[in-house]
């Protein structure tokens, strides 16, 4: 499909270049500030600290689970919003983005009011099955999913709206069922949008702080993710907090960059 690729470098118009450079400087300078202030000599000792490794492992596992849940539920929601034909669709679309606007701490309180021990759903779970969600790893995943799923939904919905409907219609005309059309035609077409949404979702989940500390509390090894560990380190030791943040940043950059390599290799 793509035209012959030219090796020649494209010139960037000055009107785009100037604001891009200013914007990049604004995004990158705070990171440079962290790097400049980091006590590099402490890094090896921090890297082998069991508490830090626990927090990092927990962060990666919960963010990945939250992304998987967001894919499972978010893609169908995006399909409904993009292709569904029902009254109140625009209201529903606005409601889906509520977690984006809500301060995460308020989101955490809202989750407690529903899934907490005395919450609407939580009290029932507690009495029927003796299950309490707050202060557990499940609560971390729920908090992350609540905050990050809208990013995936918005991306996937955008991709669905941009996709050419004629391919789906052609497949249907040739006798493909609706599910087959979705899995064999629609999904491959919107794959880049789904992946971009999943990356946004994962990154947002990894950095999640407010909803997590409010809904899941802070317990090392169980609910203390990296952002929580960073925040508590900040109370007593700025340098330790910087080292922890840089470790989290480095790990996420490595993960995202290696994933990107793989996609571009496939594409």
């Amino acid at each position: 499909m793509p035209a012959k690729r030219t090796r020649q470098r494209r010139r960037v118009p000055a009107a785009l270049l100037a604001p891009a450079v200013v914007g990049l400087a604004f995004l990158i300078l705070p990171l440079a500030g962290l790097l400049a202030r980091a006590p590099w000599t402490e890094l090896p000792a921090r890297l082998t600290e069991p508490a830090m490794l626990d927090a990092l492992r927990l962060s990666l596992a919960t963010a990945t689970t939250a992304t998987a849940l967001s894919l499972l539920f978010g893609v169908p929601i995006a399909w409904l919003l993009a292709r569904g034909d029902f009254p109140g669709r625009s209201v529903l679309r606005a409601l889906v983005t509520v977690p984006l606007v809500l301060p995460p701490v308020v989101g955490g309180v809202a989750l407690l009011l529903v899934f907490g021990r005395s919450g609407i759903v939580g009290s029932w779970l507690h009495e029927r099955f003796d299950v309490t969600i707050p202060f557990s790893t499940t609560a971390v995943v729920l908090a992350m999913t609540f905050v990050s799923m809208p990013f995936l939904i918005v991306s996937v919905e955008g991709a669905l709206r941009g996709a050419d409907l004629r391919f789906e219609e052609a497949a249907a005309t040739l006798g493909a069922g609706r599910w087959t059309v979705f899995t064999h035609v629609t999904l491959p077409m919107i794959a880049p949008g789904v992946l971009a949404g999943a990356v946004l979702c994962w990154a947002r989940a990894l950095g999640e702080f407010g909803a997590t500390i409010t809904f899941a509390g802070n317990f090392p090894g169980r609910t203390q993710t990296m952002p929580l560990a960073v925040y508590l380190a900040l109370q007593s030791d700025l340098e330790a907090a910087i080292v922890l943040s840089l470790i989290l940043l480095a790990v996420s950059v490595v993960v995202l960059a290696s994933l990107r390599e793989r996609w571009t290799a496939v594409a």
Partner: protein
Amino acid sequence: MRTGFALALTACLSLAALTGCGGSDASGTTTLTVFAAASLTEAFTEIGDRFEAEHDGVTVEFNFAASSDLAAQITEGAPADVFASADQGNMDKVVDAGAAADPQTFALNQLVIAVPEGNPDGVTGLADLARLDFAACAPEVPCGAAAQTAAEGTDLTPVTYEADVKSTLQKLTLGEVDAALVYRTDALAAQDEVDAVEFPESAAAVNAYPITALADAPEPDLAAAFTEYVLGDDARTVLETAGFQRP
């Protein structure tokens, strides 16, 4: 040092536009700037009103925040007259930076076990926490350090180590835990919803609140007078009503 000065100057200039930056303004009122720990908000607001009533033409302005933030602002040169900290550690930072000398303890705060109103689980002491879900502050913050000291030798483990005393109490008022280790003053401020159970072990982890006039106070005489006043009987009554103890 140079940035410290520049910061102080900027802060002073911007404050001057708003408040007169200490010193006297045209109408003859003098402003005293007090940096005080967030847990002192209610008590110090009342003390400030009383101090103003006794000193004609004096306005007391407060900056209430976490002691660690206040200490950082003062050492960076913010124009304050008086510093009242919720713990010794942050006061030490200010003294070590040469911004103050001779702080004096004016109040003590002790941990209590906060329980829902009516004490439904019949909590009478620290040992009862073993059978309950309870919240405590993280050891990195002063109330958590106190909780750790008080529970020394027991194997009590909270379900969560909260980032500050207010969110620890919030877990109780939201009904997510059966008890919470918080300061007596915080339990008293929420007395409509919680009861406070005293426990003898908390005597090992009393938090001392030091106060001092600052070396670079724009109003040194008034700063000294306010510090005296906080240490006096009148202010002590206010502090005790809020749940603080006499040093």
